[in-house]
């Protein structure tokens, strides 16, 4: 094989590999991804069996600990619609009423509550700058 043919073949092989990787990546990410939802969106339509990534704020006075379970409600960043969550697993230290959280949830088969996936709860780091911004 002459050198230029060889180079072309090499290029084609490399491109095919790269394309293959990209396709697999795209496919798996779309099938494994969990949709990010706000409480309003989740209440409007959540399919049983699918997992969603819920973002919102913890509702005042809604946090109850029972045994190993944590029950709380998540509301829209702006608004009042709220979703009840039953969560087990690790609770991050900054978790507090009024804080913004991200939690992966599934709709419970009955009762309208959502089951939080174990250890999926994340709380945004409280910002020390925000107070200054509000005052400016």
């Amino acid at each position: 094989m002459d050198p230029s043919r060889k180079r072309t073949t090499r290029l084609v092989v490399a491109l095919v590999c790269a394309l293959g990787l990209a396709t697999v990546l795209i496919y798996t990410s779309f099938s494994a991804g969990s949709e990010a939802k706000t409480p309003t969106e989740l209440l409007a339509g959540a399919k049983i069996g699918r997992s969603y990534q819920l973002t919102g704020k913890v509702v005042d006075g809604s946090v109850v600990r029972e045994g190993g379970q944590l029950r709380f409600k998540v509301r829209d960043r702006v608004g009042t619609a709220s979703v009840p969550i039953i969560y087990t697993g690790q609770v991050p230290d900054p978790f507090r009423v009024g804080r913004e959280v991200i939690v992966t949830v599934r709709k419970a088969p009955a009762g309208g509550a959502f089951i939080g996936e174990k250890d999926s709860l994340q709380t945004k780091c409280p910002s020390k700058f925000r107070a200054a911004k509000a005052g400016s």
Partner: protein
Amino acid sequence: MLLWAVLLSIWSTLALRVVRGRLAEVVPVATAVLFALAAVFVGMTVFLANPFVTLAQVPVEGTGLNPLLRHASMMIHPPALYSGYTLFSIPFAFAIGALVTRRLGADWLLATRRFALAAWLALGIGILLGARWSYLELGWGGYWAWDAVENAALLPWLLGTAYLHSATIQEKRGMLKLWNVSLVLGAGVLSILGTFLVRSGILSSIHAFVEPGATLRWTFVALIVIELVASVWLVISRREQLKTEHRLDAIISRESFFLAQNLVLLALAFVVMWGTFFPLISEAVTGTKSSVGPPWFDQYVAPLALVLVALMGIGPLVAWRRSGLAELGRSIARPAGIAIAFGVLLYILNADVRTDLSALLLFTLAALVGCTVIQEFARGVRARRAMAAEPTAKALAQLVRRNRRRYGGYVVHFGFAVLLCGIAASSSFQRVTEVPLKVGQSIHTRGYTVTYKQPTASVNAERVSLGAELLVTHNGKPDGTFDTSKSWYPANQTPTVGDAFAGETETDVGLRAGPLRDLWAAVEPDTSTILPIAERLDKKFGDLTPIARAVGIAAVARAYLRNPPPATFRIVVSPMVTWIWAGGIIVFFGALIAIWPPGEPVRRRLRMPVGRKRKKVGS
């Protein structure tokens, strides 16, 4: 951003001082680029997000630093990361300068090599310290979560790693020019992107600190777009000058191994980038924001990491230009033999490893890396001893001194192999148990028996801590006790007892670190029995004087001790986590060796190609 501007200025000054008198054509453009970057950041702090804005009213006392962040690694982590980001701007600026002036030899690359290395090192330190903080301070037991901001720091680091290797090829063989320029420009753009992600909150992340104004966001986007467009245009329009001077001679050569390593790193970077930006991509494609979790990342990163370690083990043994299979076979025989023997031994002796063959493969390959490094050192020392009849220790010192980059690089490889072993072991064989325990009850996990011996409580001016003393036996033998607790900081809204439990909380992790495994524990005390007591006190007495309040808080803590409800414990047994930190330290020293300014003779050689300024040597 203030920090960005400050660090950028410091590094730019240093860089321009180091290259003074060289690269006469490139430097002015590079200076302009650095100035422009600094101007953007200074402009943003002055006009869009002034950090010195005063509050409307004077607060009695500041809220202080969030207790979670009061940890030694958190003092170094942000400046290290930002140093990394800003240091990448220097090779970036010089690459732009070289492109604009079409002086695309290895000069600009040599001049900024140490800055690229420093950027890589600083970013690495930042990432690792962040991981350590997360392990020690967050009641979680992990050190990496594929969070958007973590990924944003990892991306330029990956490209930087690729660049440090491929730069050697350009220097030695005049190849891969286009590739190098692209990597440097990519790392530069990604650094800005990383900063942007931390500051912007466009991706859901626990790190997204501030909700910035729209103008600030658009400034960042504009900056990134300008950098990107300029980079792409410059590379395309200068492609003639970027043509390689040599072709790849053979598949089995150092060059091709470097290239393969570069491709793997690039693939890694691409995977991480795709995963990180997937919420934005999916929103654009399907209209809903959707994100991928850690398992998705692991499934790609693990095999790519394996390939990377394999290349790390074999690469240093392959000669430049052209190496035969037979030659490679000869040099690899001993390290590969030892590594395989090690793998087999591990398979026989360790039952855990049999359940996870990819981890076994990684350990074997890491052993190969270790053996390769040791063999290379031994070979060098032997050669020196034969030539100069030096004693072993002196020969070793001289060897490293004469070629800091090469041997520093080997040390980095070694450390990195150690680090990866730690990651593989702790992620594959970690055992997490989360159980509620009453006093006197115990759990068994991985040969450990952990017993909830007694509750603890402490109250001081700053916080209330409730916790537990845990009794440990390992394989039946008593192994001492350790403590873990959770602390509450007051919200400082009302002078009541309940307020003391309304503020920030912080977990004090109990950790018994060992060379083979860590026993990690965090507690979540049940406050449902004591909060009502606090409530009753507050209802009865209302607002309290500081002393009365302290008495009240102490009473509540005593009530907890007298009648402790079951507490939830998270007990994690992670093998070899210490190896991660140890590996990090080895990498750090390796990089320091490589970064250390070369002695005079070597410096003269580096300056020779520039020609004009030879008389300045020794100034």
